């Protein structure tokens, strides 16, 4: 009834480190609690992402995935080790690395178009107003949002906001895209269509992409390689699993493909093992003391 998916004759990218684009060497990261205790988040991270590769990192929530993206983006510095992009030490954010944040992070007082324009303006400061508008339009249409250009974020659905966020990152025309669980907040249907859009865009633009996700199937659908992140605290990266399917990939076929099933099983097995190992330490770990920020709440200081 269904046949295994064709396995690539020649892999999408010669997985042997063609040209390392992103490198992590011995990276560790922790944070301090207000009480002054150090809580380790990530340890012993060694990672090489090849030029043009689509890498997926899969892990449980709370494993430190966002910390990892922040390190790659240059928003935070590692406590130990180094992060290199094209052999240059990362010491801050760069326009070469576009980031899509988990919670969209759109500026609520700007329309969708203006949010994207902020990136265009930064990347191409010499454009005329008309050229800029055209460029903004282009990126909004790329994520199928041409019709919603003049709406503000609160007038957009979650999926649309996330697409604006993707458009903003793409508008920087970065060489590397860092996606921090961009689809986890979305309903299944929206997620599916956005996954297709991301796959399309990647095929067209061939950027190096690091996608962080908690969804193994999403990783199987999009990634060249999948690397699991062990459960936190003090998480580290597991072995890489190559994803050998030709593109474009069909979600339907992947569900039943024996190779995909095998991979899924392996990755789950690894994560489950790792999770047991963590649980066995019997260590009590304080939860991070973070309160969600409430925009609705007025703070009045008389």
């Amino acid at each position: 009834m269904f046949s295994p998916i064709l396995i690539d004759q020649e892999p999408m990218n010669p997985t042997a480190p063609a040209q390392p684009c992103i490198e992590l060497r011995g990276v560790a990261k922790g944070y301090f609690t207000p009480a002054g205790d150090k809580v380790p988040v990530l340890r012993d991270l060694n990672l090489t992402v090849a030029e043009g590769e689509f890498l997926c990192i899969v892990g449980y929530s709370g494993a430190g995935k966002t910390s990892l993206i922040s390190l790659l983006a240059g928003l935070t510095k590692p406590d130990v080790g180094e992060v290199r992009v094209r052999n240059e030490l990362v010491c801050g954010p760069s326009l070469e690395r576009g980031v899509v944040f988990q919670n969209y992070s759109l500026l609520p007082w700007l329309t969708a178009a203006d949010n994207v324009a902020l990136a265009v303006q930064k990347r191409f400061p010499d454009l005329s107003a008309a050229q800029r508008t055209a460029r903004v339009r282009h990126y909004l249409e790329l994520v199928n949002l041409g019709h919603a250009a003049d709406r503000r974020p609160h007038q957009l659905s979650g999926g649309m906001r996330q697409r604006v966020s993707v458009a903003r990152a793409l508008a920087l025309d970065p060489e590397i895209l860092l996606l921090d669980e961009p689809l986890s907040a979305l309903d299944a249907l929206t997620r599916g269509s956005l996954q297709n859009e991301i796959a399309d865009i990647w095929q067209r633009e061939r950027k190096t992409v690091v996608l962080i996700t908690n969804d193994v199937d999403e990783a199987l659908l999009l990634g060249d390689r999948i690397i699991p992140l062990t459960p936190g605290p003090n998480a580290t990266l597991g072995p890489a699993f190559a994803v050998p399917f030709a593109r474009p990939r069909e979600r339907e076929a992947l569900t039943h493909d024996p190779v995909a099933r095998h991979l899924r099983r392996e990755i789950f097995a690894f994560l489950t093992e790792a999770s047991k190992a963590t649980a066995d330490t019997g260590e009590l770990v304080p939860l991070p003391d973070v309160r969600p920020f409430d925009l609705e709440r007025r703070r009045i200081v008389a």
Partner: protein
Amino acid sequence: MKFVRLRWREVLLPFVGVAVVLVIWWALSLIHGTNLPSPAKTWEASKLYVLHPLTKRGEMDQGVLLLTWNSLRLVAQGYALALVIGVPLGFFLGLSRWFTQSFDPIMQVLRPVSPLAWLPLGLVLFQQSKPAAVFTIAICSMWPTVLNTAVGVRSIPQDYLNVARVLQLTRWQTLIKVLLPATLPYMFTGFRLSLGISWLVIVAAEMLTGAPGIGGFLWQEYNSLIYEHIILCIITIGVVGFLLDRLMSLVENRLKAVTT
């Protein structure tokens, strides 16, 4: 049905409240006979000022709207000064821990000082009543703006700042495009509270300086033993203060709708 009844209540009950207060006032005036004028007597004596609100008969003898206008002009100056000083101060407080640790204690000490205490200092410094009043209004009313701006800056979500960093916005661009719009709703809460204080302070300042505004008029009529006019002034001050507050919260809500 229920909905309609509720609407009626909303319209009617405030009038009931006013009526109750009028009755209490009237009862008190019966007891206090000579000193506290009754509502009717007050209206009789105030009619001229209310019905011809824009007539000027003398330096102090003006219609209520003219008196209010004089006061408002002074308030506007002091209030503007408060915002011009208060907003940057709030930004520094919100952005810099060093600045906060250096200046927060002294501000906490200056904040509760009464306008009545500042005014003489203003008179000494400026030798004239008008600038002294402006100075007093500014220094008394700027604190809510300062503190709310600081709170607003501090509560900008890290996400927005990350966006600014990822997009490599310069300091100036970050200020104009991210910090300022994100803080605006908080700032306006501060602005509204500051305006309320300005209006409180002007009355006190005018009473002490005898400036031809609503507060000055009140003090003069007290000295002339026309107690009806004291009540007229109290009501006028209250209504104007209420209207100012409504106006500001309208602006505030509009702004909140835009920025969040």
